[in-house]
């Protein structure tokens, strides 16, 4: 059927540039240097350096997801009163879209300029308030130091993802609650929060996924240390063999992918629940 042919360009494109690379990335984890099937790469995931990098990524992602979700939700809440389609909304939406995409390189610049060794805030604190934030060593370039920069794109992402859910709260529910004798507190406790919870958790998971898969910020800031998974993969790609295993990058990719799939499945389950209610 001729119409079916119309789908071929897209199918072709997606197969070559999405399906094939994914299969290669995951499949290579099961091959050794000679191309034979092996489990040894997967075993490499248990190595302390690599397992540690997974934990580093989990820690960073979890913290920034929770803090970003709560902060972003608060910001959405404050935005409720701005008129939809008004200038304030446009400003915040555009800013959020840009910042959520904020490449790691530019983000690194921003934070080095702010709280780097010669950053504006560092210098100000040192000269005006006599506080040296780096008394106990330079922490900006370690995993905990990545938390603030990560929040810089996590919170905007939360705003983009969560705002529609907040706008989906129908005024009729607030009014019905009032006519049935409930106060504002009861409304939030019994209606608002329960209805929003799936979206909130879903967005939180999305934030987690976003942080976990992030690479650029860490690369630009952390440099040589390889304490989160993304950076380990880079290390594995650049040097041919790591710890004697040829396709460790593939194994690590598989590990990352499994985590992502689990998280995204949770996300879509939560979001579909909300979609049913909003009908």
């Amino acid at each position, binding site marked *: 059927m001729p119409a079916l042919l119309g789908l071929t360009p897209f199918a072709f*494109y997606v197969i070559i540039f999405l399906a094939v690379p994914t299969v290669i990335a995951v499949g290579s984890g099961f091959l050794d240097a000679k191309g034979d099937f092996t489990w040894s790469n997967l075993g490499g995931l248990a190595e302390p350096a690599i397992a540690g990098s997974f934990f580093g990524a989990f820690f960073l992602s979890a913290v920034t997801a929770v803090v970003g979700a709560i902060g972003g939700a608060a910001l959405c809440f404050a935005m409720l009163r701005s008129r939809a389609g008004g200038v304030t909304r446009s400003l915040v939406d555009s800013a959020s879209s840009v*910042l959520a*995409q904020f*490449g790691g390189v530019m983000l690194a610049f921003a934070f080095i300029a702010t709280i780097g060794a010669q950053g504006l805030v560092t210098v100000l604190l040192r000269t005006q308030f006599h506080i040296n934030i780096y008394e106990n060593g330079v922490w900006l370039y370690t995993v905990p130091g990545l938390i603030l920069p990560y929040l810089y794109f996590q919170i905007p992402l939360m705003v983009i993802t969560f705002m529609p859910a907040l706008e989906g709260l129908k005024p009729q529910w607030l009014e019905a609650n009032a006519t049935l004798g409930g106060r504002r507190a009861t409304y939030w406790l019994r209606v608002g929060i329960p209805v929003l919870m799936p979206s909130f958790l879903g967005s939180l998971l999305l934030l987690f996924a976003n942080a976990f898969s992030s690479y650029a910020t860490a690369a630009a800031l952390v440099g040589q240390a390889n304490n989160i998974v993304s950076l380990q993969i880079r290390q594995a790609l650049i040097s041919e063999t790591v710890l004697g295993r040829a396709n460790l990058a593939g194994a690590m990719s598989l590990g990352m992918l499994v985590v992502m799939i689990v998280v995204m499945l949770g996300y879509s389950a939560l979001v579909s629940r909300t979609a049913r209610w909003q009908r």
Partner: protein
Amino acid sequence: MSRASGGETLRFGPGPVARSIIWTIFGLFFLIPLFSMLEFTLRTAKPGVYNFDRWALVFSGTTTRYDRVYQGLGNSLVLALVTVAIVLLVLLPTMVLVELRFRRLRRLLEVICLLPIMIPAIVMVVGLAPTYAVVTQIFGSGSWTLAFAYGITVLPYAYRAIQSNIAAIDVVTLSEAGRSLGAGWLSVLMRILVPNLGRGILAASVLSVAVVLGEFTIASLLSRVNLQTSLLLISQSDPFVAVIFALLALLFAFFLLFAVDRLVAVGRRRTAKG
């Protein structure tokens, strides 16, 4: 006797005090780093003294020091164009076709288009490296070939933008009306559907441009030059210029998105009144 009753119109959301606090905290959090970047670019050799010398130097075009960045910028702009072309010439027709003829495949298309979010860029690169070995053989090693990978990266954003527009208009009825009036399929697409999908197309294009300008991972690990990689490179020799260009890129993307958002909002208000 006037009586404003206790039963005022019920309000949603926090009161003015809570709102000011929230706006202030977040405003500071997001503006301070940007301001610090600006302050950084205005520094001179003497501490405490600021001027625009460095900005002037960048725009004067007298040195060749920044050629790298301009090269990266040029590459990124080309990449943005090619990526948008892929979105408009490959994704858009496919979405329309599915909507008109292959409704059952809609779910599958949605899953495919949202997959890239699930696959971290770094994982993609592991698989893209061998693929791009072939691509380089066929198309050469210019940076523009990155657009093939970028087209996949922007799929989730472009798909959502166009799909929300498709959902808002009744594509099937419009095309049936066009057909009954004698239009061929190409006319239906170009004269009827595309004009009505302007909003989604515009949003998808602008989002794609923003994503492409900010992309680093794939370019870096495939050893290509784009805006972000050249910024990182030059930051090692001249951090000031790097920050200047970063600020400019940010502002550009922001104004682009803001302008499109206002355009859409005004357009919507006009159609609502009419």
